C-alpha cells in the first residue's frame, strides 16, 4: 500500500472538490478499495472519506418510491421493511451477496462501484487492460470461468460482480450524483455503466470528483419478484449467472417483464428486446426459449465460461416458469 493523503470533508461539495483529481478516490465502507490498495491494484494519492456526510436515510419519494442514501449499508437496506415488502427482488439480491459482516460495512454507492473479481485484475504482475491500459488481457486465453459472455471486447472480458446492482437495474433505479462543481445530475444504470470497449479502465460515466449521493427507486411495480443466483458454493461466492425478475400477469398474459442479469457482462445486463418479446404473450416454454434465444443471440464463450450460455438459458426458463406460475410443457 502506498502512502496517501486522507481527508474527511463535512459536506458533499467539499468532498467533490477534494476528489476532483484523477488520483483521488472516495472511500465509504472500503470493503473492496482497501483490498485493492494493499495489492496496489488501486494506488490513490488521496482518500476522501465520505462517512461524515450523512446520506444514511431511506426516504419515501413524492412519486411513491424510495430514495436510498448512498451510505445506507447493504445490511440496513436489505432489512428495511419497505424494501422487503415493495422491492423483494432487491432485498433478495442484497442478501445473496457477500457475507453478513461485509454487508454491514458495504454501502449502496460503494456496491454500485465495486470492481471486477477477475484474477488477472487482482494480480499486479499479470497483464490487465483494466488495471494497466495497454498491457493486454490475461483472461482471454487464460482462466475465465467467471468472465463475460455478453458485451465483452477484445480488450477486456471482465464481469461486474454486484448482486444489488442487478436488482436495481431491473427496478429502473436512478442514480443521483453531485459533481465537483456542485451541479447535480441523474443517471439510469444503463447510463452509469459502460461496456469495456477499448477503455476497460473506465467503468462508469462518472467524472472525477462526482459523488453518488442516492439511488432512487420508482414506485413499486408489484408482480412476482425473483432473484436467482447460481454460484459455485452456497454462500460467499460471486454469481456465475444471476437473474433479477419482476413479472406481472394480466388475463393469463404477461403484462410486465423486467429482467436483469448478473455474471454475464461488464455491467448488470438488460435487454429490452427480450422483455418486449414476452409482453402480451401467454407464458409457455416455447416463449421462454425464444426469450433466451434473443438474450443470447450475440453471446460468446471464452472457453472456461462456455457453460454460462446453456446455464443462462436453463436458469431463465426456470425463473420465468416460477414467475408466471407455469409448469413444464
Amino acid at each position, binding site marked *: 500500500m502506498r502512502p496517501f493523503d486522507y481527508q474527511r470533508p463535512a459536506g458533499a461539495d467539499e468532498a467533490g472538490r477534494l476528489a476532483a483529481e484523477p488520483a483521488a478516490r472516495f472511500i465509504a465502507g472500503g470493503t473492496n478499495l482497501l483490498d485493492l490498495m494493499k495489492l496496489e491494484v488501486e494506488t490513490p494519492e488521496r482518500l476522501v472519506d465520505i462517512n461524515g456526510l450523512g446520506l444514511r436515510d431511506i426516504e419515501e419519494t413524492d412519486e411513491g418510491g424510495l430514495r436510498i442514501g448512498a451510505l445506507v449499508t447493504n445490511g440496513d437496506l436489505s432489512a428495511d421493511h419497505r424494501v422487503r415488502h415493495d422491492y423483494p427482488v432487491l432485498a433478495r439480491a442484497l442478501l445473496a451477496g457477500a457475507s453478513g459482516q461485509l454487508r454491514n460495512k458495504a454501502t449502496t454507492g460503494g456496491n454500485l462501484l465495486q470492481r471486477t473479481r477477475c484474477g488477472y485484475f487482482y*494480480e499486479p504482475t499479470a497483464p490487465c487492460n483494466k488495471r494497466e491500459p495497454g498491457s493486454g488481457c490475461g483472461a482471454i486465453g487464460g*482462466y475465465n470461468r467467471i468472465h463475460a459472455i455478453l458485451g465483452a471486447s477484445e480488450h477486456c472480458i471482465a464481469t461486474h460482480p454486484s448482486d444489488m446492482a442487478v436488482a436495481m437495474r431491473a427496478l429502473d433505479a436512478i442514480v443521483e450524483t453531485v459533481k465537483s462543481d456542485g451541479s447535480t445530475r441523474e443517471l439510469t444504470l444503463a447510463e452509469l455503466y459502460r461496456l469495456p470497449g477499448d477503455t476497460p479502465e473506465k467503468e462508469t460515466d462518472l467524472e472525477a470528483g462526482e459523488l453518488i449521493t442516492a439511488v432512487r427507486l420508482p414506485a413499486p411495480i408489484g408482480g412476482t419478484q425473483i432473484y436467482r443466483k447460481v454460484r*459455485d458454493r452456497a454462500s460467499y461466492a460471486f454469481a456465475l*449467472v444471476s437473474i433479477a425478475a419482476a413479472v406481472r400477469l394480466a388475463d393469463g398474459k404477461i403484462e410486465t417483464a423486467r429482467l436483469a442479469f448478473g455474471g454475464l457482462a461488464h455491467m448488470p445486463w438488460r435487454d429490452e428486446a427480450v422483455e418486449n418479446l414476452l409482453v402480451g404473450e401467454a407464458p409457455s416454454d416455447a416463449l421462454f426459449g425464444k426469450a433466451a434465444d434473443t438474450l443470447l443471440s450475440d453471446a460468446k464463450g471464452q472457453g472456461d465460461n462456455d*457453460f454460462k450460455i446453456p446455464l443462462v438459458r436453463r*436458469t431463465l426458463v*426456470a425463473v420465468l416458469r416460477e414467475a408466471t406460475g407455469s409448469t413444464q410443457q
Partner: protein
Amino acid sequence: MNTHVMDKPVGRTRLDDRTQDIIGKPLDRYEGALKVTGTAPYSHEHLQGEDVAYGFLVLSSIGKGKVTSIDTSAAMEIEGVLSVVEGDNIPRASAEPMSDGHKMANGGVFHYGQPIAFVVAKTFEIARQAAHLVKAAYEEEEGRFKLSDEKGRARISDGGVMESDTKRGDFEKAFEKAEVQYDETFTTPSQSASAMEPHATVAKWDGDQLTIWSSGQLVSSNTTQIATGVGIEESQIHFICPYIGGGFGSKLGIGPEAVLAALAAKKVGKPVKVALTRQQVYQATSRRSEAIQRIRIGCTKEGRITAIAHENWLANSEGNDFFEPAGVSTVFLYAGEDRLVTHRVAQTDVLMTSAVRAPGEAVGLLALENAMDELAEKLGLDPIEFRKINEPDKNPQDDTPFSSRKLLECYEEGAKRFGWTDRPEKPGARREGDWLIGYGMAAGSRKNMIVPSSADVELTADGRLTIRSSMTDIGTGTYTILSQIAAEVLGLPIDRVDVELGDSRLPSGSGSGGSFGANSAGSSVYVACEDLIAQLAKRLDVDPESLTLKDGFAIAGNRQVPIGEIAGGQTLLASGSIKPGETAENTHQASYGAHFCEVGVNAVTGEARVRRLLTVAAAGRIFNEKTAKSQCYGGQIWGIGGALMEDLVVDARSGMIVNHNLAEYHVPVNADIQNLEVVLLDEHDPYGSPLAGKGIGELALAGVGAAVTNAIYNACGARVRDYPMTLDKIIAGMTV
C-alpha cells in the same frame, strides 16, 4: 529414559482399567478459552510492543528462468526501509517435510511467485510498499506448467512416503482374462491447505543465539531446516510454537519466511516479524499435486475382483522428489490376486507439491471409490454388497494380518443409521421440486503409523503433573488428550495436569502430521507415566501392578497416600520414549471408515448441495470423543470441498496461480454444510501403540468426496471423472 519399542502387541493397561474414567471423555479443549478470547499467542503475536522490524517477501513475476539483476534503489529510498535481503540463499518455497533444509533459489526462478528478495522496514506497511518497488530483471525460459503435457516424461521417484510401485502377480494378464472389466481415467486438481493462520515467523538474536517463533508442525525438523538455511548449529536455535492456527501438512516443512526473517534480523540488528499475505501462502509455500489416475479393475460376473490397478501421474518442481501417494489405499483396501499400483512424477515449473491433509487418500480414493460405485452398478450389485464380496481377510498385497479392521462393521452400522435401504433406485427416481435427491457411499482407509517421540513428566509435591514435549498442537486437541492419557494412567483429576508443548528445548516430540501425532506423542507420555508409577511403587515398596491410582491418591493394600506426598516433598521426574518396532512390519495397520451421503442436485442449475453426511469409523482407542469427532467433522468438510469446489488454478501459459485468495479459491462455507454426523466404533488396536490407538485426523477425509459424487450420480446420472464436480460438469453429465 524409558523407551518402549513397539515390537509386541500391548496387553491390558491402566487405560483399560479406567480407574479415573477420563480417557475418551469428550472434554473441551484445554486451550479453547484462550483461543476464543484471543489470548493464545500465535507466532506473529510475540514481541508485541517491542522494537522490531517487519519483513515482506518479494516474489517473482515469471514462471521459469533466472534473475539477472535486482534493483533495490527505489525501495531503499523509501523512508523507514532498513534492508533488502537478496542473493542466492533465498528459499524457493517451504522446506520439504522432514528435510534438512530448503531448496534454495541460487538465482533461479522455479515457479511463478517464487521468493526472490526480502524487504525489511520499520513498519509492515512500509515493507510492503517497498517490496512493490524492488524491480527484478529476468532471463525468461519456456516453462512447463501443465501435468498432462509433461505426463510422457514422468519418472519413478524414490523420494515418496511409499514405494513408487507395488505389484503382485501379473495384473495385465489377469485383467485381460477378467469377465468384467473397468478402465477409466480420473483427473484431480491441485489444492492448497489454506490454513487460517498464514505462515509467520518472528526472529530474534541474542549474540549468536537465535529465538524463532514460527508456525511449524514438526519442531525438530523445522529447527534443522532453519539451522541449515541460516548456517548455524541447531543448538543455537530456540524454536517456539505453542499455538498453531492449522497446518494440514502445509507447515510440515518450515515456510520460506523463517530463514529470511533470521538472516534479516541479523542484518538489521533487531528482531524481525513476518507473516505471509494470503496470496503469498498460495504462491510461495506448497500445494497438493494435481493428479491423473487410471483405474482398472477386473472381476468375475459375480463381483469377485481378480485384478486391480491404480496408475498415477503426479507433478513436482525440479529437485523435489515427493509424490502424492494417490494409490496408497488401493494396495490393501480390496481383495484381488493380481495387483498393480504405480506412481510417476513429472517435473513442472509450478510451486512445489507436498503433503496436504491425507496425502494420497484425499484424491486417490475419489478415483478408486467412484470406480467401485460404477463397477457395482455395471455388475448389478449394491455398492456395499460389492465391497463386502471383496473384503480381504489379510493384506492382499503381502498376506500380513491386519492389526485391526472393522470396515464391515462400519458398512453395516452406517447403512443402518443412514437408512441406506431407502436409496433411490436409479438417477432421477427421487425429486423434491427442482431438487434431485441421491444417496452415495464410499469406503475410507488411512494407513497407520507411529514415529519416534519423547516426553517428560514432572510430579510436584502438591500433586500436580506437568507434561513436557516439543510435540505440537495444530488445533487438533493435543494438549487435552495428552493430559487425559496422563490423568487416566496416574489417577489424577484432569485439572491437576499441565502440558507444555511446541518448544525445541523440550524433549523431542513427534510433531503433528500423518495422523501419527496423538498416538506417538501420547505413547511417549504413557511410557513416562509408567516410569513414574515404577518410581512411586518403589518408594511405597510395593509392586507397581498392585498400586491403584485414583483421584490423586495412591492406594496399596490398606494404605492411601496423596500421590504428591510419596516422594516426601521432592519433585519426581520421569521420561518416556516410543519407537515403532516389529508390529509395524508383521501386521498391516490402518484406520477404516464408511461414509454415507445424501445430496440434492438442482435439476435446472446443476448446483449440488450435501444434505447429510454420515461417517462411521473405527480408529483404535479414542482418546477424546469430542476432539476426535471434531477432526472427523473437519475431514468431512474437506471431503465436500474436494468433491465440489477446491481447485488451485494455474495459468497454463505463465504458471501463475490465478485464484490465490479465499474469495476465489473456494472451500466450503457454513451454508454448504448441513447435517454432519460421526459415529466412532469401539476398537482397540494392540499392535498400533501402547495406547491401542490408531490415527484419525486424516481418515475422516479419506473417501468422503467419493461418497458425495456417488450420491450426485444417484441423484441425476452425472458421472464426472474430472474434479472438482462443479455445476457446469454436472449439467453436462445429467441424464435426467
